[in-house]
């Protein structure tokens, strides 16, 4: 067994939330106490968020990763593995080794088996606050190569690679660059859209926190190809760690001459500024984002003119999303052929997804385009946490749609996903099981768009509100079949009539649930029943006398004192007083509380 080079703790936001800081401190203390001089460092997230905190023991030819490492596990790992050199096999969740210069990965869940890492190749393997680690991993080689090429050649490579916008719309990146390069303007800009705002999406955050230089390098290459002199990273202020690491990375890149005047002696000058967004979802829309950078209220404007013609301060501007930029260095380094060999005919390369919701293995995954949803959800994601059947998956956040289980063999590419009524989106994948009410899901996403509509155009500002109100009526058991017709008609019109992408896609959650889960809508409307037992006005909690032991746990925890009964005798719930909070259901240890239809037998 070879010498331990370093111990690394996954310290992206996800890891920190799972307790990685405490783990890191515990390791540090343990090493100090034992007088060990092993290097301790941070890395980004390797994607296995569901097993965090993750700790890597790094040797020359192998990385062994432990999962769920809380401070209590630390002494044993140091004792057995670091000192005695004997890995604790039952805690190992992942191993990496190298064959023919390529990194190979095994993991206990089979999580990585079908993944293909391009954007995330360094995530979880390098210290994001140390430029040397990026450079050692081959970073900035693509930039050096690009600076030897003509701008047009670079654009040509990107066009041939087939890379399409990873923000969700899927516009060919190379073409966008070409338009901006060819647009007339004394000054041009590139912007990185890091205003990741979909509920359940954390791909961009992960890249920015785990491998910020990759994005910066992509932007420098793009700026050189386009002829831009200035770049902006528009990142939401709710991502403080990403901002911190970006700032460090930009500073380090400037110190090494990758940014600033006369980059690497090429004569090309370019720098990047960070703009923090104030948290308006609509600022992810490119024209609103530009307005926001200009210091105006973040509201979209009609296109054309497209930013490539008239963007930031009226100058030609190229906007790409974090993931798009992060693909660029790999394509330049490995050539367009390597990239285009991945994926499907029209969708090349890989796509990063954030798995969340009821999924067993929640985290970031990067898969080749064309993989099926079923492979992602079952083989990588491991199905649901509860073992229940996956009912649907929501792709694309509030702009996306719900795809039902019977369409899980749909290959993941822009065209196939769009055909289902959902959108590829930026990569949020929210998994739902039988306990999810699809009408409630639609209402949840609508609630989001109602609040996040910028208020400018009629269809979005008022249409989303009125659609939400119909959904509210339905989930309250007051809907009619006419409401369903109205809802579909209005949704179709809001989609067709809204000014920007936000409004044009806001009806998608409604339209797809109406399309695939009409039976659930009808149950709410006709039978006044919520099949998933989620919609509060349509359910009630009852105690099964035969199962109730009279332990009083429910009565004690009920916040409105709606449960009564003698000790050791079956209790009852006063339905008038019950607020349906579900606390009793959670605390009962005897499965004596049941959720039933409020209007049973009506």
């Amino acid at each position, binding site marked *: 067994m070879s010498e331990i080079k370093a111990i690394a703790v996954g310290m992206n936001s996800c890891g920190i939330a799972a307790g990685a800081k405490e783990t890191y401190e515990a390791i540090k203390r343990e090493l100090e106490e034992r007088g060990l001089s092993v290097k301790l460092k941070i890395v980004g997230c390797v994607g296995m968020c569901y097993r965090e905190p993750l700790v890597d023991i790094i040797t020359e030819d192998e990385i062994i990763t432990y999962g769920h490492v809380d401070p209590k596990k630390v002494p044993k790992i140091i004792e057995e593995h670091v000192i005695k050199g004997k890995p604790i096999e039952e805690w190992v969740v992942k191993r990496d080794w190298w064959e023919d210069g390529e990194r190979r990965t095994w993991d206990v869940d089979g999580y990585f088996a079908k993944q293909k890492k391009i954007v995330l190749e360094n995530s979880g393997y390098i210290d994001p606050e140390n430029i040397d680690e990026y450079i050692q991993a081959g970073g900035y080689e693509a930039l050096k190569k690009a600076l030897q090429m003509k701008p047009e050649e670079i654009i040509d490579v990107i066009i041939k690679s087939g890379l399409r916008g990873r923000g969700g719309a899927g516009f060919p990146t190379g073409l966008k660059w070409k338009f901006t390069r060819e647009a007339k303007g004394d000054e041009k800009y590139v912007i990185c859209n890091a205003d990741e705002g979909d509920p359940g999406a954390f791909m961009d955050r992960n890249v920015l926190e785990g491998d910020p230089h990759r994005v910066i390098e992509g932007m420098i290459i793009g700026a050189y190809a386009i002829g831009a002199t200035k770049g902006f990273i528009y990142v939401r202020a709710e991502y403080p760690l990403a901002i911190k690491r970006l700032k460090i990375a930009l500073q380090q890149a400037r110190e090494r001459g990758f940014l600033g005047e006369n980059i690497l002696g090429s004569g090309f000058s370019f720098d990047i500024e960070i703009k923090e967004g104030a948290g308006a979802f609509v600022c992810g829309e490119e024209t609103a984002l530009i307005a926001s950078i200009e210091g105006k209220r973040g509201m979209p404007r009609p296109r054309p003119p497209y930013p490539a013609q008239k963007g930031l301060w009226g100058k030609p501007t190229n906007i790409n999303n974090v993931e798009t930029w992060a693909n660029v260095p790999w394509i330049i380094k490995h050539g367009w052929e390597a990239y285009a060999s991945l994926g499907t005919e029209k969708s090349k390369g890989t796509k990063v997804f954030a798995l969340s919701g009821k999924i067993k293995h929640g985290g970031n995954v990067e898969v080749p385009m064309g993989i099926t949803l079923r492979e992602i959800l079952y083989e990588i994601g491991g199905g649901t946490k509860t073992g229940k059947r996956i009912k649907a998956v929501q792709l694309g956040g509030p702009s996306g749609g719900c795809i039902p289980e019977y369409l899980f063999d749909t290959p993941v590419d822009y065209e196939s996903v769009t055909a289902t009524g959902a959108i590829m989106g930026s990569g949020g994948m929210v998994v739902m099981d039988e306990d999810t009410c699809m009408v409630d899901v639609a209402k949840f996403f609508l609630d989001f768009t109602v609040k996040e509509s910028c*208020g400018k155009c009629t269809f979005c500002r008022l249409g989303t509100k009125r659609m939400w109100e119909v959904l509210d009526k339905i989930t309250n058991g007051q809907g009619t079949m006419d409401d369903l017709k109205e809802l579909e008609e209005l949704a179709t019109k809001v989609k067709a009539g809204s000014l920007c992408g936000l409004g044009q896609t806001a009806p998608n959650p409604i339209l797809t649930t109406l399309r695939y889960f009409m039976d659930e809508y009808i149950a709410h409307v006709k039978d006044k029943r919520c099949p998933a037992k989620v919609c509060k006005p349509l359910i009630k909690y009852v105690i099964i006398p035969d199962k109730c032991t009279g332990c009083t746990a429910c009565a004690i925890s009920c916040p409105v004192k709606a449960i009564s009964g003698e000790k050791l005798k079956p209790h009852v719930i006063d339905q008038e007083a019950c607020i349906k909070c579900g606390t009793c259901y959670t605390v009962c240890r005897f499965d004596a509380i049941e959720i039933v239809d409020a209007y049973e037998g009506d």
Partner: protein
Amino acid sequence: MVKVIVNGKEVDVPENKVLLQSLREKGEHIPGMCYDFELEPYGSCRLCLVETPRGIATSCTLRPVEGLAIETLNEKIISMRRTALELMLSDHYGDCIGPCQDGCPAHSDVQGYLALIAMGKYHEAVKLMKEKYILPAVLGRVCPAFCESKCRRNLVEEPLAIRQLKRFAADYDLEHGPWMPEIPPSTGKRVAVVGGGPAGLACAYYLRTMGHDVTIIEAMPELGGMMRYGIPPYRLPRDVLDKDIATVINTGIEVKTNTMLGRDITLEELRKEYDAVFLAIGAWKGRKMGIEGEELEGVMQGIEFLRKVNMGEEVKLGERVIVVGGGNTAIDVARTALRLGAKVTVVYRRSREEMPANPREVEEAEEEGVEFIFLANPVKIHGNGKVEKVELIRMKLGEPDESGRRRPVPIEGSNFFLEADNVILAIGQYCDDSFLKALGIEAKRGKAAVDEITLQTSLEGVFAGGDLVLGPSTVIESIATGRKAALMIDLYLKGKLNKAREALLEPSKHIEEIVKDDDLYRVLFDLRPYNHWKDVTEKDYEHVEKKPRVKAKLKPAEERIKGFVEVEETLTEEEVLKEAERCMSCGCMEVFRCKLREYATLYEAKQDRFKGETNRFEIDETHPNVVLDNNKCVLCGRCVNLTHEIAGEGVVDYLFRGFTTRISPPLGETLGDMDGFS
């Protein structure tokens, strides 16, 4: 220039202009609220949507390319625009017109003429009244004032005394040389108006103001119809009636009195001689009860009784008179009989609340000594050749009937008797179906059958209105149908009646024809404009200062019953000016140039299509010239963009997001704080 195909037709448009601008310049109808040719296209209102082969697009941003085919008014586009309008209306908290104007059968601009009265501009007030009705001095006395019952002051204390204010202004106008309309040169078209009552006079007047030549054919010796031969002079002095009618006739209307249709002239002759005919011969036949004893001497029809008294014929009444009925005619009969010296009892089969008569007049009758027996109905009139007593049965109220009033049901065995010398029936009037049928006009239940929209009868070019169509109604309702008939006859004379009918029925299917034809446009906005309503309760008016309504000035009852002198006196000017000030001006000041209302009318957008939460914003009235009312704002953004352009940021901008978005000066400030904003 490039060629584009607009609704299937090739059109040359300049390359450098957006299609909205080019097409509007060519006279095409493209709605829109946010577009301003001096500003960058903004795209907020979504009304200028057109369909292109690539989908729906805003024409304010669409630049023409050679061969581009667009549809500007197909079903899909109309439906999209209607939805956009309905969404705007779903969060538009305001009234288009005051409820008074809506309540008035003639939809006269009450708020407008009250404002003129408040300024002492009485002739101008009358002029404004006469846009929608004639005979204001008459109406100032006899109108039941539907406007007052709708007045929002009802939610504060009491309604405005609109009728009395009208009376003052109209009297002033008559006394000081009445305002007269300008009559355009003759169109050469001739219209015969049969019947010189309120409907006939109104139709004649409005046809005159459109330049048509009109002849009124009147069966009676004098004009006025029911106003002269029905309404007693203590309510409507004849000199007032004469003067008011004179302002109508003096517009140049030919009058033939003592000329009766069917006796002195036939409809055939009229149709031959004139280009159109308007029938407003009223409903002069009294309904019978169909009970035993109705043929006895001393039983009379109310309408016949009033006609005789009003014509000065001698009518012999006994000591005790029973009047049957609960309408205005019953009250007029009772009070007239009282003035002739009888002891009068009114018998009505429902209770006081259900009485169709004006409550004001019921009260006045009671003060004068008329007795009322409610919930009773005659079943038999007893007597030997002559009325001696009336047998009645007590009634109770059952389920509501189709009129919404509770149906009276006899209580078995509750019969009782009243001694009487006369029984006067005032239970309804009608026009003889057989008379109408003989003219060749379809009739039903004593009314002429007309097309609801055009008022045309089954005979082409023959229109009808007033009581003949409505059944017994009020002066203002008759005037309203007379005016409507005039509009329709004008369209008929121009050969546009059928088109207008279709346009009025379904405006959104005829938008192009309407916007390109002034006559259609005018009649649509006259008769079927969109009206937005606030849903309000007393609570909304808690902050309004209470100001008591002016007291009606009635002569003492004992003096009133001495004869037929007018019972009510005119208010003083001081009282009038003070009362007019009470108007809360509920209607919108921008109603005449409001694009939202215009489009909502054309596209048949409905206020309540999308029900849900509405925003309630405080109105910013701090600025001397500008009022910022976010309740009515459609967030087109033009004020924001214009002020940004002219004065830079920081004047007005959007505030908040989503459904609660509004226009506001910088947070914490008001428009009044904005120097130089106007």
